[in-house]
């Protein structure tokens, strides 16, 4: 029996979908069988990031309304033999066509066949959010280290704490920019965790390669040399229960001499 994990944030644009895609990919790379569900009905993105948008035939609404079987709607990711699947959202409906009961049933139907069911939640706290969390056992909150995003994450955690079927949520801080941390312009990692008071499961650095990867229709997690990819793979290992220490970000000292020293010592 697998676990259903919802990836949520409250605020839009902080990296829920990127995180869902990369965590799903990382878990599959670790040999787990994963099903990704895009619940952002009407504004789907996950299929694009996974590079599967041309292969959508049936979608989530077709499944819950009984127009097709689950396995007909699932799209297999060709990077793997039989590990990574996507259940896409329709682009031409809205979030109210599905209710919580249908989502609970859908996810409980999927869980026996997969190790992890990863649910990509839409922004906001309306029906789409309630659908996304209805069947989840665990929740991962994604936030950036900006006050508006942290405030929304706080609201979401408050809502999730009321849901008794979900374990206490865990936190991913996304798009940490090392240079801003040094200049005291951004809330730092401690500031965010101190504010939200939930367990931190990972910190993702900001990297242009994420956007490049999205345009190449291949999640960054496939690239073994990238630090973002590494961060996602480490989170996947933490989800599996390994204890992987957090890699410090932005902790390198900034002066010219130290850069020079680093240049000689690393290369």
């Amino acid at each position, binding site marked *: 029996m697998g676990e259903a994990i919802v990836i949520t944030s409250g605020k839009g644009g902080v990296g829920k979908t990127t995180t869902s895609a990369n965590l799903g990919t990382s878990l599959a790379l670790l040999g787990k069988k994963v099903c990704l569900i895009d619940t952002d009905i009407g504004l789907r993105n996950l299929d694009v990031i996974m590079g599967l948008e041309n292969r959508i035939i049936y979608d989530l609404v077709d499944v819950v309304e009984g127009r097709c079987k689950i396995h007909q709607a699932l799209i297999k990711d060709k990077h793997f033999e039989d590990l990574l699947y996507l259940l896409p959202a329709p682009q031409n409906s809205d979030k109210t066509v599905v209710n919580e009961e249908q989502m609970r049933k859908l996810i409980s139907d999927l869980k026996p066949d997969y190790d992890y069911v990863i649910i990509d939640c839409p922004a906001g706290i309306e029906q789409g959010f309630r659908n996304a969390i209805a069947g989840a056992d665990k929740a991962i909150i994604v936030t950036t280290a900006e006050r508006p995003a942290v*405030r*929304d994450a*706080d*609201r979401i955690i*408050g*809502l999730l704490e009321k849901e008794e079927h979900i374990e206490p949520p865990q936190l991913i801080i996304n798009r940490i920019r090392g240079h801003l941390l040094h200049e005291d312009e951004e809330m730092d990692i401690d500031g965010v965790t101190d*504010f939200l008071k939930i367990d931190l499961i990972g910190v993702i650095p900001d990297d242009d390669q994420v956007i490049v990867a999205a345009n190449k229709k291949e999640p960054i997690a496939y690239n073994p040399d990238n630090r973002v990819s590494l961060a996602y793979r480490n989170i996947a290992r933490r989800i599996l229960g390994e204890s992987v220490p957090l890699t410090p970000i932005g902790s390198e000292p900034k002066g010219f001499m130290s850069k020079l020293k680093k240049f000689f010592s690393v290369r």
Partner: protein
Amino acid sequence: MNKRIQQNVMIKGTKDGFMLHLDDSCSFSELLKELEVKLSANYQFQENDPSISVKVHTGNRYLDEQQEEKIKEVIHKKKKLFVDEMISNVLTKDEAKRWKDENQVTTVTKVIRSGQVFEVPGDLLLIGDVNPDGTVRAGGNIYIMGQLKGIAHAGYKGNNEAIIAASVMKPAQLRIAGQVNLSPDQYTKWGHDLECAFMDEEENIIIEKLQVLKKYRPNLNRLEGGL
């Protein structure tokens, strides 16, 4: 055996005024009738006599609001008398429960997050933070062992004596009874530890170091003794 007719209404004079003892075993209509008779038989007041306060003691009888009104009405018919207080030995369960709720400290360990409103009838002891956009509300005092960054409303039913104390006092707003205190635009990074808020005589909300509470709210000390 006492042959004398049962006195349902007894009038006693005290130094603060009259005390009316109403018997609790007779029927209410009997009581009302006798009260009327007793009061009308009394001394006729002069125009310039001072008004006299009357305390009404109803013993073990429970009076609802209408009945209380009726008794007051009868007494007020006498021009110089006014009802100062109605005393009864009994409470309804609801009243007792409310009284208990309003006088107890509710302890909770949680973080009050954005969008959440947490309300208690009595005092609140919160072990945790109040985050921005979160609200705590208490009929009595609010004690926060954590950071207050949201809104705290003490004495929200109109208790001006209520106070708010927090380990870290950086609220968005403080409210005590009907008064609102808006936060400064910027908090200094240090120096908001262990502070309290209370209302002074001019109904301004004052934020001060915790030590001053002893001076302004001595009633907060419920335990006597110690060193």
